[in-house]
Each structure stands twice: as structure tokens, then as C-alpha cells.
């Protein structure tokens, strides 16, 4: 077990101002964009379903900052955060949620499948567990091709009970693949508390030893702590040391999905976690480390403006042409299954 602490003072800063500002900015961008997406549901501008990561931003942000641009991200339907954290455009994300031409997938995929290959976002997968073996395959490919690329694969606590989780972890460990599996334990699968469906306390960490891996738990609401762990695991993978499995404790502020008000959660629990909101606390830490209020405020203003602009651009984008329906089933660009 490896419970991460922050024994670092402003005089002894292993992270540094520039990185800290990136970590804060990334968290902010995610938070603001997710809240905007939420508002747009209410206006019925976002269709289908949508799964927000508000409350969980520190994890995506920390990995986003710790990863190299060539590295691969695989995430879930709750993947707006991980997608943004790699540098995908806000307009592309919002546009996809709204089913517009400017969407990352041109409107074809929807909120659960955000993908941006140029930024190493190798897809958001909507069927629980499926992306763990696929991410493992990308890691195998990097190993085979002899690149130094690392794959990071995000998933939830509820995902630790499905077969694909087990298959992927086992094969990644046997083949010593350059991959980091990140379990974001937000205490719930959809509406059911994770403790009711898993016989161990830590759904991921208590299983690491089953794959010959170290048990790693980190405070997922502390971007610095996650960043440190991320750096370590990514370095291990890059150096040929094989996979890691990290369990990051966190909490989602909204319900599971658009349709869910989250009323099944005890109010005390919600309150306690709201008090541990990763963003205000990180803001306080910036101040602690001597970063001026004006710098922080300027960044906040910038991020707000960027989200506003992305919103307007996405709103102004036309809906997709129905012509694309017949496109890209096959690599030849079409959909013909017969001559």
C-alpha cells in the first residue's frame, strides 16, 4: 500500500510553479466545461445522455500534465475530462455533445465516444470494461514497435467486477506492457454503492496482487498527489518496468448521468465530499506556494472566456449533413457491403 502524502513545503517544491499552474488550469477547464454542458442539458441543447466528471477533475488533469504528447489515453463514457486534459478542443467536445458538425466525431459518436487521435485520445468507450483490453493492445503495440509511448487507461470502481478487467490486467502483467490502469473510485457504480458489489475494501488496489502488482491508493482529489503517482507509474512503464494499477479515491458531484439526480447518496456523504472539492483546495495551495491572486484570477477569466467562446462556436455550428451517415463504415470511406 502506498498512501500518498504531501510532505512538501513551498521551499521544497518538487512540482514547481509552471506545472502547478498547468494542473490548475486543466482542472478549471474541465470544471467549467462540464458545468456548461450541464447547463446546456437543461436548455435541451445537449441530447442523448452525458456523464459529468465534476469533482473528479484532479485525476484527468494530473495525468494529462504528466503524459507526453505521444502517449495514449483510453477512457469511458465519463470521458470529457480525460479528452480535454490531453488538449482536445472545447468546441469539439461541446459540439459533439450537441450533435453538431464541429463535434470531435462530427456528431456520429455522441458524448460517450469522444475521440481525438491527434491528441492521443484513443477513444471513449461506453461498454464497461471493453477498453481495458483495447488499451492493453495499444500498449503492446508501443512495446512491439519499440516506441517509448505509454498508455493510460481510466475506468471506474464498478468496472473492477467485469471479466474484461481481469483479462486485461493479467495479460498486461504477463507481457510487462507499458500501461497505467487508473481506477477512479467514486464510490458508486451507477446508483449502487461499490461496497455492495465488491467483497474487498479497495476494489482495484486490493486486487493488484492478483496480477503481481503493487497496491497503490491515492487521494484523487489532490492533483499534486495524483501527479506524483502518475509520474512514477508512467516512468516505470516507459522504462520497461511494466504496468501499474492505481486506485484514486474521488467523488462525483452530479448524479451518474443526465437522468440521475443522485438522491440515493446520503447528504452527509455528499457534503463531506463537496468540502473536499479538488478545485478550491488546489487554488488555496497555489496561494500557499506563493502564486499571486492576480495570476490565478487572470487564468480563471481566460478559462471562462474560452468556454464561452467554445459554447458560441458550437452553437453556431450547423447540424451534420445526413450525407455522413453513409460514410466511414469502411476504410474506403463508404458503407457498401455488396457490389
Amino acid at each position, binding site marked *: 500500500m502506498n498512501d500518498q502524502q504531501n510532505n512538501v513545503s513551498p521551499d521544497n517544491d518538487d512540482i514547481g510553479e509552471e506545472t502547478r499552474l498547468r494542473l490548475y488550469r486543466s482542472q478549471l477547464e474541465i470544471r467549467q466545461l462540464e458545468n456548461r454542458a450541464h447547463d446546456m442539458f437543461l436548455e435541451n441543447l445537449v441530447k*442523448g445522455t452525458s456523464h459529468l466528471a465534476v469533482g473528479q477533475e484532479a485525476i484527468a488533469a494530473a495525468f494529462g500534465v504528466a503524459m507526453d504528447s505521444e502517449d495514449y489515453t483510453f477512457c469511458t463514457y465519463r470521458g470529457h475530462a480525460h479528452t480535454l486534459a490531453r488538449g482536445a478542443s472545447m468546441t469539439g467536445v461541446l459540439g459533439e455533445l450537441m450533435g453538431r458538425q464541429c463535434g470531435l466525431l462530427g456528431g*456520429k*459518436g*455522441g458524448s460517450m465516444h469522444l475521440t481525438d487521435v491527434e491528441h492521443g485520445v484513443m477513444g471513449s468507450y*461506453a461498454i464497461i470494461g471493453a477498453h481495458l483490453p483495447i488499451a492493453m493492445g495499444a500498449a503492446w503495440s508501443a512495446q512491439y514497435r519499440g516506441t517509448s509511448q505509454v498508455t493510460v487507461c481510466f475506468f471506474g470502481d464498478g468496472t473492477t467486477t467485469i471479466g474484461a478487467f481481469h483479462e486485461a490486467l493479467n495479460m498486461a502483467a504477463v507481457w510487462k506492457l507499458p500501461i497505467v490502469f487508473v481506477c477512479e473510485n467514486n464510490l458508486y457504480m451507477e446508483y449502487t454503492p461499490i461496497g455492495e458489489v465488491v467483497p474487498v475494501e479497495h476494489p482495484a488496489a486490493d486486487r493488484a496482487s492478483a496480477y503481481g502488482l503493487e497496491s497503490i491508493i491515492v487521494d484523487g482529489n489532490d492533483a499534486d498527489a495524483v501527479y506524483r503517482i502518475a509520474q512514477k507509474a508512467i516512468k516505470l512503464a516507459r522504462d520497461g518496468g511494466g504496468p501499474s494499477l492505481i486506485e484514486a479515491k474521488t467523488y462525483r458531484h452530479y448524479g451518474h448521468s443526465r*437522468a440521475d439526480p443522485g438522491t440515493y447518496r446520503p447528504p452527509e456523504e455528499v457534503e463531506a465530499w463537496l468540502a473536499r472539492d479538488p478545485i478550491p483546495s488546489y487554488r488555496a495551495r497555489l496561494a500557499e506556494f506563493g502564486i499571486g491572486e492576480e495570476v490565478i484570477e487572470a487564468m480563471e477569466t481566460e478559462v471562462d472566456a474560452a468556454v464561452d467562446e467554445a459554447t458560441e462556436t458550437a452553437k453556431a455550428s450547423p*447540424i*451534420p449533413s445526413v450525407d455522413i451517415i453513409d460514410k466511414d463504415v469502411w476504410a474506403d470511406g463508404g458503407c457498401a457491403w455488396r457490389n
Partner: protein
Amino acid sequence: MAKLTYREAVAAGIAQEMRRDENVVLIGEDVAAAGGVFKATVGLLDEFGPKRVRDTPIAEQAILGAAMGAAMTGMRPIAEIMFSDFLAVCWDIVANQIAKTRYMTNGQFEIPLVIRTANGGGSRFGAQHSQSVENWAMAIPGLKVVAPSTPADVKGLLAAAVRDPDPVIFFEHKALYATKGEVPDGEYVDELGKAKVLRQGSDVTIVALALMVPRALKAAELLESEHGISATVVDVRSLVPLDTQTIFAEVEKTGRLYTVEENPRLCGWGAEISSLVAEELFYDLDGPIVRITTPHIPLPAADNLEDATIPSVEKIVQTIRETAG
């Protein structure tokens, strides 16, 4: 008769059977405390308690394995697979185990279970949460396959499925959950394997299923009122057993068959019905058999794309108008 929604009819059908037989139980992800992500099982935990209405881990193979093992040993489980797309993660248990074990063991087991699942598109959920996969199930020997289009059929066919001694895959349609209809009060049990003639016409026979049924009915009205084409509409309701008698009788009368399928084109259930008619009713046909299907592509997510992909009333009208001449 009470007016119920399609989703209320699900709970009503399950409750009716659970009251009757204590070996009937319900398991699935979030089916108990949350009443299901589609709210189709609301109230069941309260009435029957956590022993009979159980939340499970996210582990579809375990869910259906549990159901199968229980069905082999005297219980009558109802298992929910939240979205029918997820049948793919437990397809081995469905297609290789549940479907084949009775036959392989020379009849040593009965496996009376029901797999309920939310099928079909129209909710802008994208390609992994919107599929119509009733044809996957139809292709597997040993499974019965039901897909109701109205609240009354939901209640009656679900009750029949629970009482049936064989495994039944019960496809509920996501886009119908909010629809309302009269449902017989009191104990109500329908019969598996019976199609329903919903409208009688003289020019063409339209055979449809689930969400395609209301669309076919609407199309038939428009064909009649605007194009002078008189259409019979048959709701297949049950793909296995298949009521070829009813379907054939209607095709014989009109000499023309149209199938309206939500599943993508290749190897859909319409192909099977078409091939049966092309073999057994060939000489009664007055013209080509036409299949109206979702094209053979994954389903796109954006509203306008999804709407242009799944067979619509307009598409049905247009196709029949252009070919029924």
C-alpha cells in the same frame, strides 16, 4: 382496464408473476434500490424485498450465469441486461450455455428463465447503446424471442415468458417506455408465438416488430389516405416461436410482403420471413418482397443522423408507394 405506460407494464407483469410464484426473482444492475435505469422495475424492491429483487455487480456473465444455474435448480429467474448491446459481453452464456444445455443433456434440464433487455434506438445514445439485436437472438437455436410493442403486450407476454419452461429473451424497446396504453386489470397472461393482425388491408402486407409497429400503422394510414394503398399490418410480437400461420395467411391475401426491421440489414429477422415466404408462398406472391431496414451501418448519435437512419414513417410510406404499383 387501466392505462399504463410501457415501463409500468414491465413492473406490473413482473409483480403479477412474483406474487403468484415465489420462485420468480429479479436480478440485474440497479434493478432494486434504483428501480432500474429505465425505471421499469420501480416498486418491486419495496413489495418483494432484497432477497427476491437483487442488485448485482457489473458482471453480465455472472448475472446470466446466476440466472441459468438458478433456473436449472428449480427457480424462475428474471435477469435484466440493461441495454441489449451488452448481450455481447455475456453472449457465451446466452448462446452457448442457456440455449444449448437442455438439448446437449438430452433433456435433463429445463431452463425457465427470462432475460429482459432494453433494445433499439431513438434515444441519441450512439452505436453502443442503441442497437436492435433481436436478430442475434433469433439466430440461436434454443432461445425464444419476444419483442412487444404495446403496454398490454408487455404485461401479457412477460407473464407468458416467465411461465414458459424455456429461456426467453424479452426485448423491451427504449423508445416505447414512455408510451401509454390500456392494460387488462387483474391476472393477465398472453401466449408466446402469436402474431397480431392490427389492421386489415387488401394491397400489401406489412410485417413489423416493436417500435416499427406504431410506425407501420401510421404509414398504413397515410398510404390509405394519401396514396390509395390499402395495407395490412401484422405485429410479429414473437420471433421464436414464429407465427408463420398468421403471417402467411395475410401475405396470401395481399400477395405482397413488406418487412419493417430496426435491426441493420444483413441477416435480420425480415430476411428469415422473406426467405420463408419466397420458399413456401412463392406462387401467391404478386411482386417482390421488400425489406425496409436500418441500413447495414452502426447507428450514428446526433438527432438528425439517427432519425435519418432508423426506418421512419416517411421511409415506409415512400418505399411502399414506389414499389407496390
